[in-house]
C-alpha cells in the first residue's frame, strides 16, 4: 500500500485531519471492494446466458420461433456457449426470467429474498425469517453452550498439568477430523430416545464451536509472559487474582478470534443438522427441499440468507470485540 503522510502537500485540504484520514481510508478500501463485487455480479449475469441456454432455446421453440439446430436431440449434445452463440436472440432474452433456471440471475434471487422476508408475515411457513429464526435459535443455543464449556475446559487445562497433557493433544487432533460426519448420527440417536427439534441441532453446533474456543482460549490464557506473571507474584497475588486480573483480560483478543470462527462453525453445524433427517423447518430444510423439487431460486435465496446470517453474526462479535478491547486499552 502507498500510504503518503497526511501532511503531504495538498493532503486533507479544507478538511479536518480526522475526516481526511477517514475519507482516504474509505476511498482506498471501498472503491476496490465495490469494483470486485460489481465485476462478480457482471460475471454472474454473463454466466446466466450459456447456463440457461438450453431452456431458453426450448422456450423460444415452443413459442414458434426459428432455432438452429431444430432437433432437440442435437441441441442436447451441444455446450451452453455454442448454443447461445448459434441462437443469440432467444438465449439473451430468456436467460434472466425463467421459473426454474439452472443459474438464476442476481435480481431473481434478490426479488425472492425480498419477497420471502419483507413480503410475508414472519410466522408464515414460506417466510425466510421464520426458517432463519429456527436455524438461528439452534445456532445461538449451541454456540453459547459450546463456548461456555470450551472456556471452562481451557481454564482447567491451563491450571492442571495432567489435563493439559492428556486433553490438549486430542483437542488439537479433533480439529483435523471432519466432525460434521457425526451430525446425522446425533440427530437420529437423539430422535430415537425421544429428543427432537432444537436440541439435536444445538448439540452439533455446540460440538463444532467447542474445539476452536478451547484451543484459542488456552493460547490466550497462556499469553501473559513471565515478566508479567513475576510482577503479580511480587505483589503477592493469589492464583485467583492472577487469573481474574491478568490471564483472563489477556486472553480476550484470542477468545474473540476463536468466537468468530466458532459462530460460523455453529451456523454450519445447525444447517447441516437439518439435512439428514429431512427436516421441514430451517434454512437447511429450505436448501434440501429446493434441491428435491428443482427450485433453484429458492436454494439460492436460502443460501444468501444463510450467508447474510453468518456475516451478521460475525459482524456482531467483531463489533463487541472492538468496543470491549478499546475500553480495555487492548485495541491496536
Amino acid at each position, binding site marked *: *500500500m*502507498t500510504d503518503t503522510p497526511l501532511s503531504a502537500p495538498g493532503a486533507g485540504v479544507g478538511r479536518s485531519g480526522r475526516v481526511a484520514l477517514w475519507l482516504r481510508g474509505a476511498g*482506498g*478500501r471501498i*472503491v*476496490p*471492494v*465495490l*469494483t*470486485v*463485487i460489481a465485476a*462478480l455480479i457482471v460475471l454472474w449475469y454473463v454466466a446466466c446466458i450459456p447456463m440457461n441456454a438450453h431452456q431458453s432455446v426450448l422456450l423460444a421453440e415452443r413459442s414458434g420461433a426459428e432455432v438452429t439446430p431444430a432437433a432437440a436431440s442435437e441441441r442436447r449434445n451441444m455446450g451452453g456457449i455454442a448454443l447461445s452463440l448459434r441462437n443469440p436472440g432467444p438465449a439473451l432474452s430468456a436467460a434472466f426470467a425463467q421459473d426454474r433456471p*439452472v443459474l438464476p440471475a442476481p435480481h431473481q434471487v434478490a426479488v425472492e429474498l425480498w419477497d420471502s422476508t419483507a413480503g410475508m408475515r414472519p410466522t408464515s411457513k414460506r417466510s425466510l425469517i421464520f426458517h432463519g429464526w429456527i436455524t438461528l435459535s439452534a445456532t445461538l443455543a449451541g454456540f453459547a453452550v459450546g463456548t461456555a464449556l470450551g472456556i471452562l475446559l481451557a481454564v482447567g487445562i491451563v491450571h492442571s*498439568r*495432567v489435563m*493439559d*497433557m*492428556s*486433553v*490438549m*493433544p*486430542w483437542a488439537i*487432533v479433533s*480439529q*483435523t*477430523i*471432519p466432525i*460434521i*460426519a*457425526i451430525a*446425522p*448420527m446425533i440427530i*437420529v*440417536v437423539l430422535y*430415537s*430416545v425421544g429428543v427432537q427439534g432444537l436440541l439435536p441441532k444445538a448439540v452439533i453446533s455446540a460440538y463444532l464451536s467447542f474445539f476452536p474456543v478451547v484451543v484459542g482460549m488456552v493460547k490466550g490464557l497462556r499469553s501473559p509472559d513471565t515478566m508479567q506473571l513475576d510482577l503479580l507474584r511480587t505483589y503477592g497475588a493469589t492464583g485467583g487474582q492472577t487469573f481474574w486480573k491478568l490471564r483472563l483480560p489477556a486472553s480476550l483478543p484470542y477468545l474473540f478470534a476463536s468466537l*468468530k470462527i466458532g459462530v*460460523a462453525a455453529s*451456523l*454450519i453445524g445447525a*444447517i*447441516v443438522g437439518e*439435512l*439428514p433427517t429431512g427436516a421441514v423447518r430451517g*434454512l437447511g430444510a429450505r*436448501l*434440501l427441499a*429446493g*434441491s428435491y423439487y*428443482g427450485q*433453484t431460486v429458492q*436454494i*439460492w435465496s*436460502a*443460501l444468501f440468507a*444463510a*450467508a447474510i446470517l*453468518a*456475516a451478521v453474526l*460475525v459482524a456482531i462479535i467483531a463489533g463487541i470485540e472492538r468496543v470491549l478491547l478499546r475500553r480495555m486499552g487492548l485495541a491496536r
Partner: protein
Amino acid sequence: MMLVIFALVLWAAGFALNARLATGPAADTRSVQLAVPAIFGLTLIGMWELIVRGLEVPGVILPPPSAVAAAFAGELDVIWADFVQTFVKGALSGYVIGALAAFAFAIVADRHDFLKRGLLPVGNFMAALPIVGTAPILVMWFGFDWESKSAVVVVMVFFPILVNTVAGLADTQAMQRDLMRTYGASYVQTLLKLRLPAAMPFIFNGLKISTTLALIGAIVAEFFGSPTLGMGFRISTSVGQLALDMVWAEIVAAALAGSAFYGIIAFIEKRVTFWHPSHRG
C-alpha cells in the same frame, strides 16, 4: 452394575497414572508426552466399552467400541471403496484444483494492488460464509458422481488458500525487496527466490485449514445425492438402517483420513519451511 463400577475404577487408575507421569521427573521427555494422551484415550475407550455393556445400552443408540472395531475389520472392503470414492476422487481432486486455482488467482491479484485491495476483504468475507450450502446447487449442475463433490471442495478450499497466499506474498520487508532490486532481479526472480519462499508459512497455514474443509465438503455434498458409494452416503444410509456400528466405523475412517491428510501436509510444511522460527530448535 459391576462393569460400571469397574469403569469408574479404570478411570481413577488412568487418571492417577497420568497424574504421576505428568508431575513426575520424566514429564518433559517425548515418550511421556506421547504416553499421557494415549493413556487418556485408551481409558476413555475402555470406559465407553464397560459402561455400554454394564448399562446394556442398545446398539442402536451407542454401540460399544468392540462392535465398531468388528464392523471396521469386517467391512474393510466397503470402507475402502467409500474412502476411494469420497477422499481420493472427491476431496483430493477438488483440493488440488482449488489450491492451484487459488495460487494462480493470488499471484495475479498480487501484481495489481487495486485487485488485491478489493479481493482480500471479499475473500475474507467469503471464507467465513457457510459455503457448504452451495452443495445442492453444485450437485444439481455436476451430477451425483464425484465431480460434484470435487466442485464443492474446490469452492470450499479456494478462499482460505487465496487469502493466506495473498497475505503471505505481502509479507516481505522493504529492505529485502530493495536488496533484490539492487541485484537487478526481475519480477519473476523476485517472486521465485524471495516472495514465494517467504509466503510459504502462510500458504501452508491455508493448506492445513483446507484439509479438514475438503473432507467436510466431500462428505456433506453426498448428503444431497451420490452414487451408492461414499462415506457420506454410507453414513446417512447406515443411520437409516440403525446400523450404528457401521456409522462409527465410517467416522473412524474419516477421522483417520483427516488426521493423515493433515499430518502429511504438516510434514511437507516442516520440510519446506525449515528456516521458520516455529520449526527451529
